[in-house]
C-alpha cells in the first residue's frame, strides 16, 4: 500500500463504534457465498484446470460490499451470493483478496442485494470468557445457522490458508463447521471476528478460530489505495533471554527485559539494520519482555504484533543493546517479504517452460503438492528456502519436474527432479532466464544441475525436429508461461 493521497480512499466507510446492529439486521446482512473455482493442474500447466468449488459465508461490511475469507473465494471463476428472505441469487466478484490473512472483499453489482441489509459495525477485541455469536451457512442445512460460545484464548497462530503466515487469532468454543468460514462473529451488535478455521472433532473439541478485528482493520486499511500489499514484518528470529549467563554476556540487568536477535533474513526489512546478537529492549516505545512479549492495548502479545499493525512505507523504532552499548535503530518496511514460494498460491496460472519435452517449473508449494518429489535436495531447498537464504542464488528454484517421453529425451529419465544450475555455462536464477537461455541460438544446450553429475545435453536440431511432434502428441497448447507481466511502476 502506498500512502493514501487523500482522495484515493474508496467510498468504503467502516462503521467503527457506530450504531450496533439489531439481531434481525444481522441475520439479513449475512450471505451465503457459492464459489465455482478452477484450480490449475501443475502436471499439465498449459491447461486451465478442473472446476470445483464450495460455499461459505460473507457479511455486509459497507453499503455495497461483503467481507468473507480468502479461502472461500480463492480461484473463483463464478461467484453467487444469497441471503435470508430473498429468493434471488446475485452475481458477485472479488474486489480484494488477502491470502496472507485469509480475508477478501466482494462486490455485488446489483444494488437490490443490499436492500434491507445493514453494514455491520466492526468492534474491538472481546474479553476472555465473554459470549459471542457465530452466524453462517455451515453444513447441516440450507438456511442461516447461529451458534454461540465464549472467547477462550487470544493468541498468535498460523493461518492455514497460506500455510506460512501467523497473525493474532481468537479461539472460541462455539461450533464452527465447514461453511461457517467468512461469517461474522458478533458481540453486542458488532463484528468482533470472522470465523475461519478449526480442528476436526478427532483432534480437539470445541476449538474454533476467528480472525480478530485488528487483522480485519489492517486489511481494510491496506486496500484503501486500491491495492493489497500484504503484511510487512521484521523478518528476524528472536530468542528469549531467560538464562542468567546469557543476560550477563550481554551486560543486561536482571529485569526480565530484552530479547536476542537470533536470525536476520537477508531479504527482510531488518537486513543491514539489525545484527545477530543485538538485544531488542523496546519496539516503538513498548518495553519488550525477555520472552518477546509486549503489552499492547491491555493485552500481552508477541512483539511481532507491533509490526503486524504497520504497512508498507511505515517504520518501527527499536531500542537495542549492541556490544553492550544502547542504541536506537529504525527498521523501514519498504516491501512485504518478497519470497512467497512456501505459501499456497491462488489465482495464479502455473509458470513453466517446456523444452525438448522437458518440463521446467519454479518450485512452489503448489508444485510440491502436485508432484511427490523423491529428490531430497528438492525437499531441502523448499523447506530451507528462506532460512538458508536459498533465494540469494536461486530466487526461483527451477525443477525439471517431468518429461514428456519422446525419442529425443528417452535417455534423460535420470535427470528428472533435478534443479537447474546453469545452461551453457550461464547461471540460471529464474524461469525467465531459463527461457532466455533456450531462446539463444546454440548447437548444444548443456544444462548443469545442482549437485554436479553429468550435464544434460540437448541438440538444437533434435529439439526443433521433435517440437511439433511433442506438442501434438501431448496436446500441449503453449510451450511456456512465464507469468503475468508486471506493469512498469
Amino acid at each position, binding site marked *: 500500500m502506498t500512502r493514501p493521497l487523500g482522495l484515493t480512499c474508496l467510498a468504503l466507510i467502516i462503521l467503527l463504534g457506530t450504531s450496533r446492529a439489531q439481531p434481525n439486521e444481522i441475520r439479513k446482512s449475512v450471505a451465503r457465498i457459492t464459489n465455482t473455482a478452477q484450480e490449475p493442474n501443475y502436471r499439465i500447466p498449459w491447461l486451465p484446470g478442473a472446476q470445483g468449488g464450495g460455499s461459505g459465508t460473507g457479511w455486509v461490511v459497507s453499503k455495497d460490499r461483503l467481507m468473507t475469507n480468502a479461502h472461500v473465494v480463492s480461484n473463483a471463476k463464478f461467484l453467487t451470493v444469497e441471503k435470508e428472505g430473498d429468493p434471488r441469487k446475485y452475481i458477485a466478484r472479488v474486489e480484494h483478496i488477502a491470502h496472507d490473512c485469509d480475508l477478501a472483499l466482494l462486490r455485488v453489482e446489483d444494488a437490490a442485494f443490499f436492500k434491507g441489509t445493514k453494514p455491520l459495525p466492526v468492534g474491538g477485541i472481546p474479553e476472555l470468557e465473554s459470549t459471542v455469536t457465530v452466524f453462517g451457512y455451515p453444513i447441516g442445512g440450507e438456511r442461516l445457522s447461529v451458534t454461540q460460545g465464549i472467547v477462550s484464548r487470544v493468541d498468535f497462530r498460523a493461518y492455514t490458508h497460506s500455510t506460512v503466515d501467523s497473525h493474532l487469532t481468537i479461539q472460541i468454543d462455539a461450533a464452527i463447521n465447514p461453511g461457517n468460514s467468512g461469517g461474522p462473529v458478533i458481540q453486542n451488535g458488532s463484528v468482533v471476528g470472522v470465523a475461519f478455521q478449526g480442528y476436526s472433532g478427532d483432534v480437539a473439541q470445541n476449538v474454533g478460530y476467528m480472525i480478530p478485528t485488528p487483522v480485519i482493520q489492517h486489511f481494510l486499511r491496506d486496500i484503501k489505495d486500491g491495492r493489497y500489499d500484504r503484511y510487512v514484518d521484521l523478518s528476524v528470529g528472536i530468542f528469549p533471554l531467560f538464562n542468567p549467563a*546469557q543476560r*550477563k554476556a550481554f551486560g543486561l540487568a536482571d529485569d526480565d527485559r530484552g530479547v536476542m536477535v537470533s536470525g536476520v533474513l537477508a531479504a527482510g526489512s531488518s537486513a543491514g539494520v539489525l545484527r545477530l546478537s543485538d538485544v531488542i529492549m523496546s519496539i516503538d516505545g513498548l518495553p519488550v519482555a525477555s520472552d518477546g512479549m509486549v503489552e499492547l492495548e491491555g493485552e500481552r502479545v508477541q512483539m511481532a504484533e507491533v509490526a503486524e499493525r504497520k504497512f508498507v512505507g511505515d517504520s518501527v523504532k527499536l531500542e537495542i543493546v549492541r556490544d553492550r552499548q544502547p542504541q536506537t535503530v529504525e527498521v523501514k518496511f519498504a516491501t512485504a517479504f518478497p519470497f512467497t514460494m512456501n505459501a499456497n498460491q491462488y489465482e495464479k496460472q502455473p509458470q513453466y517452460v517446456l523444452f525438448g519435452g522437458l518440463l521446467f517449473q519454479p518450485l512452489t508449494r503448489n508444485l510440491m503438492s502436485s508432484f511427490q518429489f523423491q529428490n531430497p535436495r528438492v525437499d531441502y531447498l523448499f*523447506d530451507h528456502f528462506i532460512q538458508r537464504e536459498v533465494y540469494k542464488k536461486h530466487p526461483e528454484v527451477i525443477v525439471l519436474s517431468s518429461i514428456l517421453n519422446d525419442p529425443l529425451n528417452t535417455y534423460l529419465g*535420470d535427470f528428472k527432479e533435478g534443479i537447474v544450475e546453469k545452461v551453457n555455462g550461464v547461471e540460471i536464477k529464474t524461469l525467465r532466464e531459463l527461457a532466455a537461455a533456450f531462446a539463444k541460438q546454440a548447437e548444444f544446450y548443456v544444462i548443469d544441475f545442482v549437485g554436479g553429475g553429468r550435464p544434460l545435453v*540437448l541438440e538444437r536440431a533434435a529439439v526443433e525436429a521433435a517440437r511439433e511432434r511433442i506438442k501434438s502428441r501431448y496436446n500441449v497448447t503453449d510451450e511456456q508461461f512465464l507469468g503475468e507481466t508486471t506493469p512498469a511502476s
Partner: protein
Amino acid sequence: MRSFLFLALFVSIAGLRAEQPKTLAAPTVKLDESHHVVRVNITNQNWDFLRPWGKRAPFTRRAVGPVLAGGRVLVSGELVANANYIELELPDGSGKTPAHIEVVDYECNLAILRADDSKFLKAFEPLELTEAKVGDTLSVWQLESTGVVLAAPGPLTTVEVSRYPTDDSSFLVYRAQTTIQFRDSSFTLPVIKAGKLAGLVVRYDSQANNAEIVPTPVIRHFLKDAGKKPYAGFPRTGLGFSNTRDPQFRRYVGLEGSGGVYVTQVLKDSPAAKAGLQPGDIILSIDGQPIDQDGNYRDPAYGKLALIHLISTKHYDGDAVKFVVQREGKQLDLTLTLAHRDVESYVSEPYVIDRAPKFFILGGLVLQELSRQYLKDFGNDWLKRAPQELVYLDRYQHDLFPDHPKKIVILSRVLPMPSTLGYEELRQLRVTKINGVELQSLADVPDALEKAANGLHKVEFDADPSVIYLDAAGLKGDEEALTKTYRLPATKRL
C-alpha cells in the same frame, strides 16, 4: 490322532531318503549334512544413539553357520553387529560353547567366528567354496530341532552388483528363487551347491520367495583379506560416474564407439584423485576390460557386471589398476592404487557398529557427532523422521565438505538443568564453535571449554539461535545433580 500324523510324516521322510530322489523340487533331508553346519546363537545389544550413554534392550537370534577349514564359522556381519555374547551349538542341541569374532567386515556383511573351545568343531567336516551361475540349483540349509538339515532348493536367478546393508557399499549378490520355511529367528543361512558352499543368505523376501545371497566371490575376497593382518577391507576408487547412453551427450563429448562412462565426482585424497582422474574424464577401460556405456564390463564367469565388482572384489587393497580414460579427445593411461576407505574417515560415518557413540554433556546440552547411525535411530522411516537438515548434511557430505572437516558436532537435545534455563527447546542443531574454537570433532570440546571468558561459555550454532551462553561455574555446580537427576552412567565418552 496327533501323534499318528507325526509318525506318518516321519515315515514319509525316511522313505524319501531311502529313494535318493533325483529331482530337487521338494525339500530334501540328509542327516549327515549336519556335520557341515553349526547353530549360531547371538545376543546383540545396540547402542542407543539418541541416548548415547546407554544401550537398547538386548535381543537374541539364531542362525546357521557353515564350518570352514581351520575351525572357522562364517556368518553375516549384520548377525554379529554389536554382539554381546556369541555361542555355537551342535545341530541337535546336544552341546554349546562360547565363541568370538575373529574378523568382521560390516561393509561386505561377513564375519568369521571361532569357538573358544578349539575342540568343539573337531568332528565337523569343513565346507569348500564353489561359484555358482545363473540356472544352477542352490539349496538353502536350515536345521530342524533334531539336528536334521532342512534344505530348500531353488534356482539361482540373478547375479548382479547391489547395495549392501551399510548402504555406502555395493558388491556382488546372488538371488535365488526358493521357499524357505521359517525355522530360526534369522535368515543368515548357508547356501549349498553340490555339497559346497556357494554363499550366505542374508535377506529373504517371503512374498517374492527371493533369497539375497552374499556370494562366493565376495566370501573368497573376505577370507583372503582375513588371512592378513591388519585386515585391509575391500578397496575403492573414490570416484562417481554416470552413464553415457544418450547419443546427444556422446556427440557433445566427442565419444566414438559404444562404451565409456563419464566421471562426475572425484573425492579428495582418494585413489582416483591421487592418480589424476578428473571430473569430465571418460573411462574407457579398467584393468584391460572395456567399460560399456552403462558402466559394465564383461566378467568371464558372470557376463555383464557393474565395474564396481571388478574394482572392489576382484582387486585388493593396494593393487595398482590401469584405467584408460579419454580427456579432451585424447586417451590417457592412469594407474590407480586402490585402497580401502576407513569408515572413520567419513564426515558423517555411514555406520557405527561395535563402537560406543561419542558424547559430551555440557551441563545438560547433549553434544554428539553426526553419523548415519544416529539418523537411523529415528526409526525405519528415518529419512522422513530424522531432522531434515542433518539428513541433508549426511547425504551430501561429499559435496558440502570436500575439504573434510573431521566431524559435525550437533546439539542433539537438552537435559534441562538450572544452568540451561531457557534452552530446553534446543535440539538437532549443528554446533560450530565453543568459546570461539571451531569444532572439528567432539574431541575438541574439552580444550574449548578451557577458554571460557568472564566465567561464561559461548556456544555457537549455524542456525537460529546462533549463540547461547552458559555459566561455567553453574555447570560445574550442576554436574552432580545432572547425573543424579537423569541417572546418567557417564557425562562424556570421547
